C-alpha cells in the first residue's frame, strides 16, 4: 500500500481529513511533522488545509520556511507527487513550487460553498483519474483564495497547460482567469484552493443534483496518486 505523508503544521485543520481520504483511496497515510526533517520514506505528500501559523505574515509564508518544507521542496524537485490543498496551495506558492500568489478574496469575505470546477489538466500525478474538461464538485472554504500573477506568468500558465482547475459557474473570489488550481511542468506538484478531501464519502460530501451530501469527486485525486504509485511498484 503506497505510503502518503500528510504534513501537520501548527494551525493545520484538515490534516486528519486528508489522512482519511488517503485511507479511502487504499493508501497508507503517514503523519509528518512541520518541525522534522524526516519524510519517513513516503512516496507522495499532501500539504493540508488550515491556517498554519495563524496566517501570520501572509497565508502559508511561515510554513513555507519550516524545517519539513526544505525536504518537501527537495522531494518535489526530484519528482515526488505533492498535493497542496487550500492553505497547502498557499504554502506551495510561498515556497515557489508553483508561481503566482493568493490574496484576500475580492469581496473580502470568507466563503464556504460546494464549488463546480472544470478539470483543465488531467495529466498530473493527482488528476489522471479525471477526463480533461470534466466538471466536478468539491467544497471550497477560504478567505484568501484570490489567485493573482502577472501577465507574463498567466501567459506561461495558459500556454503550457499548467492550469489544473478552473472555477465553473461563478468565480467565487476574483481569481484571475478563473484559476482554482495549478500544476508544474512535470505534473507532480498540484495545488488548489477547493478541498478534495471533503468529498470522498457519500453522506459527508458536497450536495449534488442527485442527492444531498453525495459528492465524492475528491476521492479521485487520491486514487490518481495511489494508482500511479502501485503501478510503479508492480
Amino acid at each position, binding site marked *: 500500500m503506497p505510503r502518503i505523508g500528510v504534513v501537520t503544521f501548527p494551525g493545520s485543520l484538515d490534516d486528519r481529513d486528508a489522512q482519511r481520504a488517503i485511507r479511502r483511496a487504499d493508501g497508507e497515510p503517514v503523519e509528518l511533522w512541520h518541525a522534522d526533517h524526516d519524510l519517513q520514506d513516503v512516496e507522495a505528500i499532501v500539504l493540508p488545509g488550515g491556517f498554519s501559523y495563524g496566517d501570520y505574515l501572509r497565508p502559508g509564508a511561515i510554513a513555507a520556511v519550516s524545517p519539513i518544507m526544505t525536504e518537501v521542496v527537495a522531494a518535489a524537485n526530484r519528482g515526488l507527487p505533492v498535493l497542496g490543498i487550500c492553505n497547502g496551495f498557499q504554502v506551495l*506558492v*510561498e515556497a515557489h513550487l508553483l508561481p503566482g500568489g493568493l490574496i484576500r478574496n475580492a469581496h473580502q469575505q470568507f466563503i464556504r460553498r460546494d464549488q463546480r470546477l472544470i478539470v483543465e489538466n488531467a495529466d498530473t500525478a493527482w488528476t489522471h483519474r479525471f477526463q480533461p474538461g470534466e466538471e466536478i464538485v468539491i467544497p471550497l472554504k477560504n478567505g484568501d483564495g484570490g489567485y493573482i500573477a502577472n501577465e507574463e506568468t498567466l501567459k506561461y500558465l495558459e500556454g503550457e497547460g499548467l492550469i489544473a482547475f478552473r472555477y465553473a459557474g461563478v468565480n467565487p473570489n476574483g481569481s484571475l482567469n478563473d484559476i482554482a488550481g495549478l500544476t508544474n511542468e512535470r505534473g507532480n506538484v498540484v495545488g488548489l484552493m477547493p478541498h478534495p478531501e471533503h468529498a470522498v464519502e457519500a453522506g459527508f460530501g458536497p450536495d449534488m443534483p442527485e442527492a444531498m451530501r453525495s459528492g465524492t469527486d475528491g476521492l479521485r485525486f487520491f486514487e490518481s496518486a495511489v494508482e500511479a504509485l502501485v503501478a510503479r511498484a508492480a
Partner: protein
Amino acid sequence: MPTIVVDVMPKAELLDPQGKATTGALARLGHEKFENVRIGKRFEFQVAGEVTDAVLAEVRQVADDILSNGVIEDVVAISVDGVQVADAPAADALAGEAR
C-alpha cells in the same frame, strides 16, 4: 540599539480588497474626498551593533525574501533610526539580482 523599519505595500496594479472596503467606509462617513485607500504593512525590528553595509544588505534580503512576497507586494522603503536608506527602485533592483 538601531531600529530598522521596512514598509511593504500591495502592488499598485493589484486589487487591494481591504483598501477598497476602507475607501467605501470613509465615503459612507462623509469623507468622499479621500480616495484609493491602500493598506500595507510596517515591520519594525532592532539589530545589535552597528548597521554596516553587510547588515543593510541582509536587511534588504530579508525584506525581499521573507517580509514581502514579490508576486503580490513591493518593499517601498527601508529606514534605519528614521533615516531612509532604500526606496522601491533600490529594493526592486536587489530583488532582481537575487532572482
